[in-house]
């Protein structure tokens, strides 16, 4: 069976390598992808949305639906892990012996984590807020923010991390992020433009339409960050404790 799998993988690999030869050269300016839509985004992003990093304006504005449903996918994935793994302690079979008590935790790890976590969180906020100008944005910032809580849970224990950020808060946050994103979209709809057409927010924000699009992108980035942060932490606490949230790794 393993031989057969190897042969199939080799065949498919050879086929892919063969096909890769027909792809246009990397970075070639006259490929279909580079002549059709990309030049519009590259040339007009700053004029349309006042966002210098056109990756951010592309994700947040031009393809806002795509990012919204990506956030929804992350939300659904987190909720699915929760549904499968989470169990309340009383449903646990009684005969399972309690795990042996841990030795005292490593002081180097704990001090390192204590120094690192504030820096990580500040950096995460910077990444979210500075996504308009540099690589980054809600997704990356949210992951770093979630990772800071995961670090706390790993270097101290799960209880310490859950004391800072309760499971209930995490779950509410994960839904609030998606709702913030969709809510900004619906607000645009209520103001008489398309769903996620941030230019409609200019009257609310008291700015012109270009800056309104920039602020709208920032708003949805915050929504993405909240959801991603909450789901990453939720995934960790469920996977690391096997679903009963009593003890981590």
């Amino acid at each position, binding site marked *: 069976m*393993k031989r057969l799998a190897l042969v199939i993988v080799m065949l498919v690999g050879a086929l892919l390598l063969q096909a890769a030869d027909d792809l246009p*050269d*990397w*970075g070639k300016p006259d490929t279909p992808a580079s002549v059709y839509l990309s030049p519009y985004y590259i040339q007009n992003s700053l004029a349309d949305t006042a966002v210098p*990093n056109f*990756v951010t304006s592309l994700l947040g504005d031009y393809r806002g639906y795509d990012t919204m449903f990506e956030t929804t996918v992350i939300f659904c994935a987190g909720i699915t892990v929760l549904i499968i793994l989470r169990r309340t302690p009383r449903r646990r079979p009684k005969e399972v012996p309690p795990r042996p008590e841990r030795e005292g935790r490593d002081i180097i790890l704990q001090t390192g984590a204590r120094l690192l976590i504030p820096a990580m969180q500040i950096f995460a906020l910077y990444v979210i807020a500075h996504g308009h100008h540099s*690589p*980054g*944005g809600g*997704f*990356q910032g949210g*992951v*770093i923010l*979630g*990772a800071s809580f*995961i670090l706390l849970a*790993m270097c101290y224990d799960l209880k310490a991390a859950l004391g800072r950020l309760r499971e209930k808060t995490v779950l509410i946050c994960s839904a609030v992020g998606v709702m913030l994103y969709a809510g900004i979209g619906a607000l645009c709809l209520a103001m008489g433009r398309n769903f996620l057409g941030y230019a409609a927010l200019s009257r609310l924000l008291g700015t012109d339409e270009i800056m309104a699009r920039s602020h709208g992108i920032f708003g949805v980035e915050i929504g993405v960050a909240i959801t991603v942060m909450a789901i*990453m932490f939720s*995934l*960790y606490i469920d*996977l*690391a404790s*096997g679903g009963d949230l009593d003890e*981590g*790794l």
Partner: protein
Amino acid sequence: MAWDASLLWQFDVLILLLVVICAVAALTIRDLVSCAVITGAYSFLMCLMWTEMLAVDVAFTEAAVGAGVSTVLILGTALHIKRRSKD
């Protein structure tokens, strides 16, 4: 030539070589915890690869998600199941 636009083709070749080594090692090794760590290393090399291709946003995401959080998640799961894989 395909590599004209990249920064340093020798660097590319080195990274790609290490990526292949990591991928093969992750498949052949039996200890799941080592496998999780190698997967993290693989992600980090891919992050270097994205940076080489000047896709800095993708590289950032790969570093945060691939090399960071998903390694931890795989590790956390691997510690809860039987540690040695049968195949």
